[in-house]
């Protein structure tokens, strides 16, 4: 009989965090930040080891594989859009991925962080399940990746639209693509809040495509540099 503590704690706290949507300050944070932090605090206070927690919580992590595959569904739903204005969009995806990966590598290197952390940070602009897969594959720390990805998303969601209007990027295609590429699902939800349907569609396609490109690009970069 496995200890159900981790499972109950995770699902319960996550559902609670989802209910926080209408509370002024907490509602701005994505539920994963609230639930994740609470779990860390609880584990610290009651002195629960990660092994005890993960005994049953690891089953939740297992669901990440089918969830990643399920991302193919929005790709299918909007693939006609990809065929429409293709040239610029495709290069846009490639540019986004390239800039994200290379600047991450350079800044991380400048900060003198060690290789393990750099690798964990490389896929940070990509949606979390894909990023975790990439990080695992390259020998990074998936836990760290998950955390950094979410922080990137929160940052992009808070400032993405402001930065874009500051540099006079106005078309929905450009905004959606950029937000999706730089701050994945969390940023995209901000587009949805603004009620820009086209931005959301563009962003959700962008999330998946940039994820796929990065999964090829990031290992290549690491291979060449080291």
């Amino acid at each position, binding site marked *: 009989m496995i200890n159900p503590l981790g499972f109950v704690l995770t699902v319960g706290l996550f559902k609670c965090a989802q209910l926080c949507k209408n509370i002024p300050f907490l509602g701005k944070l994505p539920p994963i930040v609230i639930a*994740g932090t609470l779990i860390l605090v609880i584990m610290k206070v009651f002195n629960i080891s990660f092994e005890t927690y993960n005994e049953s919580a690891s089953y939740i992590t297992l669901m990440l594989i089918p969830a990643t595959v399920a991302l193919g569904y929005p790709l299918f739903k909007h693939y006609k859009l990809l065929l429409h204005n293709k040239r610029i969009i495709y290069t846009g995806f490639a540019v986004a991925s390239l800039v994200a990966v290379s600047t991450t590598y350079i800044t991380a290197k400048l900060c003198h962080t060690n290789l393990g952390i750099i690798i964990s940070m490389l896929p940070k602009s990509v949606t979390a399940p894909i990023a975790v897969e990439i990080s695992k594959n390259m020998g990074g720390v998936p836990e760290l990746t998950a955390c950094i990805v979410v922080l990137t998303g929160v940052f992009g969601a808070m400032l993405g639209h402001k930065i874009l209007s500051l540099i006079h990027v106005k078309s929905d295609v450009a905004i959606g693509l950029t937000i999706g590429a730089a701050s994945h699902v969390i940023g995209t939800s901000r587009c949805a809040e603004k009620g820009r349907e086209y931005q959301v569609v563009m962003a959700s396609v962008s999330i998946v495509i940039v994820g796929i490109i990065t999964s090829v690009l990031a290992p290549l970069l690491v291979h060449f540099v080291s």
Partner: protein
Amino acid sequence: MLVFYYASAFILKLLHIVFPPAILGLLLFAIALIYGVIKEEWVNTASEWYIKNLAMFLVPFWGGLLVYQDLLKKNWIAILLVIFVTTTLTIVCTGLFVEWGMKFLRLHHMRRKHD
């Protein structure tokens, strides 16, 4: 439906060692949908459920941070700095590239029509 996801993930695990299996599974899934191998009605509720609860599946990773707390304590300034700088750069570069690129193409198109 569940069986399908696990099967595709599993087959890919057997076939591909270097590439993340779930991402190839994603691509195959989309291709299968586009070519009508799988009907949309079979999978839409499950897919939407997975995507809606995606964040929940990641919560245990945050719990896992407990194991790496020393690593975090040493590097948190660097990590935040990297996130801040690179996300801004990515947004600026991509945004400008696509915006200008679209303008350029439209101009190009119009000029060609004019000739």
